[in-house]
């Protein structure tokens, strides 16, 4: 039997210099930390106002999504069709969706404007004719916009990730409209852009109307996103959505990856300014303010160790690099894999900060180590998973970058880091909230 006091962290901690790219740790059985903040496909889908979701899955798969909806108080926008053994045996999956959807629409007290129907891994494997299903449904319910969504985690390693697919389908109901040449959508984020960002300011000063699904309160507002001339994204999971909209609605797509590298930020913002005829901000002043904020925050932390996890930002290595280069005592990054965008930061960190600890989040030992080891309340965590593993009340509750972009994003992030250093949070309560921020 395992003795938690004798459990070592062997296999769960490697200097970045010794980690291979893109998989720092071998794949195997996986543990799931009780940090529930990251959004799932239900949370994302609920961003479409006045929509209703139907999941068609086995009971075990339904459980998590049903309760996601219930916990966010959206159970009246959610229904299910339970797939049973006989459906797999009899091959009547198409009929089940058709009749089940009709049954649910008939029972609902309000007719939804849009319907998101989620099918599962089983439909994929048995070759369910989804084209036929959706064709029939759209013909039968012409007053409801219907789109296909997927809960197919089995495809996460071989096709588009479920997360990217969901963000693609999130905009699939937008219809072609007459274009407003000075309107742009920011797509693919769970948190809207910080209105203090220089990027937002550039767009506004250039006379652009900025739209974001997070700001939409009605289905009509959502549909107005179809009027925009362009889409802007910075989350890698939104790239496919942007490319699809370009093809389908003719909206230009600008992908400006979230970055903590000054050159990359400026290059991206210059590119956008040139394409959209935007005024350029005073980059020198912005850079100076970011430097000041970083210096001041490092002074406040005064050597306090810092850990970052991959749920806090899509560029955890980039953030680690920025902080290390500005005197922060970053000791570890929690991530199970590196992305292509991580590569330059990975190479630099490997060369100059090769001792930086890389830790997994899904390794089977991680939960046991968190429970058996002493908490480290003196460490500042950026991200919920790092906060859990370290048992620290000092953490920045950040997801996917938190809508903080550019130089001013860095300044805002410094503010959050300083606040986390000063104040303690109720980590256990906060990180167990599913889909942090999904209810506004």
């Amino acid at each position, binding site marked *: *039997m*395992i003795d*938690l006091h004798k459990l070592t962290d062997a296999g769960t901690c490697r200097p970045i210099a010794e980690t291979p790219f893109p998989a720092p740790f071998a*794949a*195997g*059985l*996986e*543990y*799931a930390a*009780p940090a*529930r903040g990251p959004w799932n496909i239900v949370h994302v889908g609920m961003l479409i106002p006045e929509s209703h979701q139907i999941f068609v*899955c*086995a*009971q*075990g*798969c*339904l*459980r*998590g999504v*049903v*309760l996601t909806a*219930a916990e966010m108080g959206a*159970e009246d926008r959610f*229904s*299910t*069709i*339970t*797939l*049973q*053994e006989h*459906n*797999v045996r009899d091959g009547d999956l198409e009929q089940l969706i058709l*009749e*089940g959807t*009709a*049954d*649910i629409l*008939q*029972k609902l*007290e309000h007719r939804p404007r849009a319907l998101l129907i989620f099918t*599962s891994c*089983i439909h994929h*494997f048995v070759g369910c004719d989804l084209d036929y299903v959706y064709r029939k449904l759209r013909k039968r319910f012409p007053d409801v916009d219907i789109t296909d969504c997927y809960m197919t*985690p*089995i*495809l*996460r*390693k*071989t*096709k588009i990730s479920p997360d990217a697919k969901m963000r693609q389908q999130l905009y699939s109901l937008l219809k072609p409209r007459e274009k407003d040449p000075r309107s742009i959508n920011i797509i693919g984020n769970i948190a809207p852009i910080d209105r203090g960002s220089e990027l937002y300011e550039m767009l506004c000063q250039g006379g652009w109307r900025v739209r974001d699904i997070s700001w939409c309160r009605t289905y009509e507002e959502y549909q107005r996103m179809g009027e925009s001339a362009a889409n802007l994204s910075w989350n890698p999971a939104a790239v496919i959505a942007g490319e699809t909209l370009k093809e389908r609605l003719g909206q230009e797509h600008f992908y400006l990856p979230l970055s903590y590298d000054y050159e990359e930020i400026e290059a991206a913002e210059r590119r956008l300014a040139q394409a959209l005829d935007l005024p350029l901000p005073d980059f020198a002043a912005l850079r100076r303010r970011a430097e000041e904020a970083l210096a001041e925050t490092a002074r406040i932390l005064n050597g306090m160790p810092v850990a970052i996890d991959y749920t806090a930002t899509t560029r955890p290595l980039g953030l680690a690099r920025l902080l290390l280069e500005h005197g922060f005592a970053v000791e570890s990054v929690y991530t199970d894999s590196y992305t292509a965008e991580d590569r330059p930061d990975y190479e630099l960190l490997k060369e100059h900060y090769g001792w930086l600890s890389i830790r997994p989040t*899904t390794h*089977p*030992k991680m*939960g*046991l180590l968190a*429970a*058996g080891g002493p908490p480290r309340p003196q460490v500042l965590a950026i991200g919920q998973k790092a906060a859990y593993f370290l048992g620290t009340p000092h953490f920045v509750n950040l997801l996917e970058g938190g809508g903080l972009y550019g130089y001013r994003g860095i300044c805002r992030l410094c503010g959050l880091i300083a606040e986390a250093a000063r104040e303690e949070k109720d980590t*256990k309560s906060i990180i*167990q909230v*599913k889909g942090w921020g999904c209810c506004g």
Partner: protein
Amino acid sequence: MGVLRLRQTESVISTYAADVSGVCSALYEMGGMTVMHDASGCNSTYNTHDEPRWYDTPSMVYISALSELEAVMGDEEKLIADICETAAQLNPRFIAVAGTPIPMMMGTDFSGVARLIERRTGIPAFGFATNGMHSYLLGAGRALAAVAGRFCPDGIRPEGGARPVVNLLGATPLDFSVGGSVEAMGAWLEQEGFAFGCCWAMGSPWEELMQAGRADVNLVVSSCGLPLAHALQKLYGTPYVTGAPFGREFSRRLARQLASAARDGQNRNPLQPERGGQQSGEILLIGEPVSAASLRCVLQEDFGLTGVRIVTPLECPEQLACPGDLFQAQEDDLFEAAARARLVIGDPIYRRVLRGNRKAAFIRWPHEGCTGRIYRREIPVLVGQSANNWLETRL
């Protein structure tokens, strides 16, 4: 307007924890390693909604992270190798592998997988061919019975002490949460003059579970305890009584039945209403079969209420059902039953099946196996007099 009567849709209600979660929940505190054979999702569903112990009490519950390629190729070697590698690091007491929908479609031979794991690691291993299409009751029941059948040693007998020894069978957080119900049942046994043996499977260390054969009688407090009761009866000849000790009068009757069973070795089921016949359904109870039937007895014996019908989406062993009860009910059945009821007692989510019946009262009786952690703080302890106090303020 006619309503298409189609099974398998849930427009307003929730779904219960699945069989695979039941396996994990039942084995959680036993020092084994439980692996859900699935791509992703089952583990976060389990540890978010079905497992209140996850944050503070470590347990070796993992997911195999099955990929499309492995599924298509029927590659079970990766699963076996990953389990063996982790087991070598963590040295669990046993290994359990439980299935989900895709392994069902792949035709995964869970018994064969377990045999191979056991051969390679030397650690006892179980395979559970769950498929995520049944409720937790089935999974937990199978898991508890399998552990008893495999590990409980022969040759243990009751010691014949002054107080009959009683084990609690079938307690998991999915039915009793973590708000003190299990502890209260243990205390109730002592108060009624019994000696509390062990609880399968909350709060009792492994060594105590292995002494289950010392009990004079077992008390089955949820339907997932029934397969275990059968296993222990087969192993030790221990009789069992079915019922949760709710309410002043019913818990006394239950105690008398326990004493009788300890004396004569006969099983007893006090959950059949004393005033028999078909239940009219004026009062509708929705919940786990043993808890719901026990609460019905409280309503009848402590409050004189009749016409209490149980209608629940959960499965129920035949011996627990009464005429008029409906198990594995679909949403349409619940709508229909609720339309005729003057009082509905069930998880708060079932208030939504009352649509159109504005005269019916509703008592919130949260159930972790139904809505997970959402209403956990409201889950009542109903042991003994507590049920009377709880009902008195609500009826």
